[in-house]
C-alpha cells in the first residue's frame, strides 16, 4: 500500500493546540478537514474542528458530530481527513489509545484517508518552541508514525501560536461540547479563524 503524507496548515495546528490549552485537565479531541491530492495519497489539513472535552468513549454525540462536520466539510468542497486527540496525562501522551484508533479506523473506512494526530504534551509550552504533534498513518491495518508529516511554515506557525497563547485566544475557541451546552456557540469557530489569520 502506498504511503500517505499529511501536511498541517497553521490554522489547524493553532486550533488543536488552543483546544488542548483551553482544557488542560481533560482529554480533548477533534477532526481535521481538508483536501486530498496525488490520487488520495496526500492530505492537506486546512482546518480543525474541535469536538469534545467531556464524555469520551461514548458514541451518540460523536456520531452526530461526525455527520455534521462531514456535511460542513462537503459544503466547503472538503472532506474529513484526520482525527486529533490530546490526552490528559503527561507521559506517553502521544500514543493513540483504543478510542483514537477506533475513530480513525472508522474515518479511514469511510473516506479512504485518515491521519491520526496525537499531541505530545511534553512538547506543549507557552513559548511554543517545538512542534507538538505526532502523526500516525495506517499501513497494512496498523497505525504507525508518519515520517512524512510536515507542518506548513513551521517557524511562523509556532510564533503565531505563542502570541495567541499569551493573548489567551483559547477562550474564544468553541468545541462541539460547548455547542451542545448552548447552541448559539459556533463550533466552526469563524471568529477564532479571523483572529488566527490576523495574528499570522
Amino acid at each position, binding site marked *: 500500500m502506498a504511503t500517505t503524507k499529511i501536511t498541517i496548515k497553521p490554522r489547524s495546528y493553532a486550533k488543536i493546540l488552543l483546544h488542548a490549552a483551553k482544557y488542560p485537565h481533560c482529554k480533548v479531541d477533534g477532526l481535521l478537514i481538508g483536501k486530498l491530492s496525488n490520487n488520495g495519497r496526500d492530505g492537506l489539513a486546512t482546518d480543525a474542528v474541535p469536538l469534545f472535552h467531556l464524555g469520551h*468513549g461514548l*458514541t451518540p454525540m460523536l456520531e452526530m458530530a461526525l455527520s*455534521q462536520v462531514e456535511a460542513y466539510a462537503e459544503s466547503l468542497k472538503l472532506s474529513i481527513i484526520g482525527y486529533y486527540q490530546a490526552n490528559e496525562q503527561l*507521559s506517553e501522551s502521544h500514543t493513540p489509545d483504543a478510542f483514537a484508533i477506533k475513530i480513525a479506523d472508522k474515518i479511514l473506512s469511510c473516506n479512504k484517508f485518515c491521519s491520526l494526530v496525537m499531541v505530545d504534551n511534553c512538547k506543549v509550552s507557552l513559548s511554543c518552541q517545538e512542534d507538538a504533534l505526532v502523526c500516525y498513518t495506517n499501513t497494512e491495518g496498523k497505525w504507525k508514525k508518519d515520517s512524512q508529516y510536515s507542518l506548513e511554515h513551521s517557524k511562523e506557525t509556532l510564533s503565531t501560536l505563542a502570541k495567541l497563547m499569551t493573548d489567551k485566544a483559547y477562550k474564544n475557541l468553541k468545541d462541539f461540547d460547548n455547542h451542545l451546552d448552548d*447552541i448559539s456557540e459556533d463550533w466552526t469557530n469563524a471568529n477564532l479563524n479571523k483572529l488566527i489569520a490576523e495574528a499570522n
Partner: protein
Amino acid sequence: WNIYEQIYIAALDCGREDLADVCLEALQQQFPKSSRVYKLKAMGLEATGNYKEAEEIYLKSLSRDKANVGARKRLVAIYKAVGDHPSAIAHLNYYLEYFMTDQEAWMELSDLYIKVMDYSKAAFCMEELILTSPYNHYYYQRCAEIYYTMNGIENLESARKYFAQSLQLNSKNMRSLYGFFMAASQLLQSQKISSKSKKDNSRYATWASAQIMERYQEFKSQSVTVENLGALLDSLTL
C-alpha cells in the same frame, strides 16, 4: 489556615513550587501531627511526579486509618494519572463498599469503566446514581449514552427511554434531544424490529427532528451548519 491549604493546592496546580513550599512549611509548623497536612505533603510529591513516594504515604495513612477518605481518593487519582485503570477501579470499588452515598465517586467509577470499555458496569454505576437522585436529568442522559454505545436493539431501546426521561426532566437538554433522535433513527434502520416498533420509532424520530430544527430556528441565518442539519436529520429519518 484554610486559606493556606487552598493557596498551597492552587500553587501546585500552577507549578509554583516555591509558593507551595512556603505554605506547606507554615502548615506543618502549626499542625505537626496532622494527617490532613501529611496528605498535602503527598499531593506536593504528586505534583512533581514522585508518584511512588506519594503512594507510600497514602498507603501508610490508610494502614493507620482505613476510613481516611482523602488518602484513598488521592490513591485513585495517582493510579488514574499513571494510567493504571484497573488499580484505580479496585480502590474506588473498595471505597464505595463503605461510602456508597458518595455521588462523585460513583461518577468517577463510571468514567473509569468507560475508559476500560466495561460499559455494562459503567451503566450500573449510573443507575446507582439515578436511584439516589431520580430527578437529575444528567444522570439519565449519561446512562442513555452508555446504553447507546453498547448497541443492540434492547440497549438502543433502553437508551431511547433514558433519553426520553432526561428530556422530560429538562426539555432544554440538547444532548438528550439529539440522543433520543439518534436512538430512534438507529432502531428505525434495524431489520430486526417489528413493524409496530418501526412506526413508533419513525414517529419519535420525526418529532425529535422537528424539535431540533425548532431550537435552531433562531440561529438559522448565522451559520450554514443549520441548513445542513435539516437535510442531515431528514436523511437519517427515512
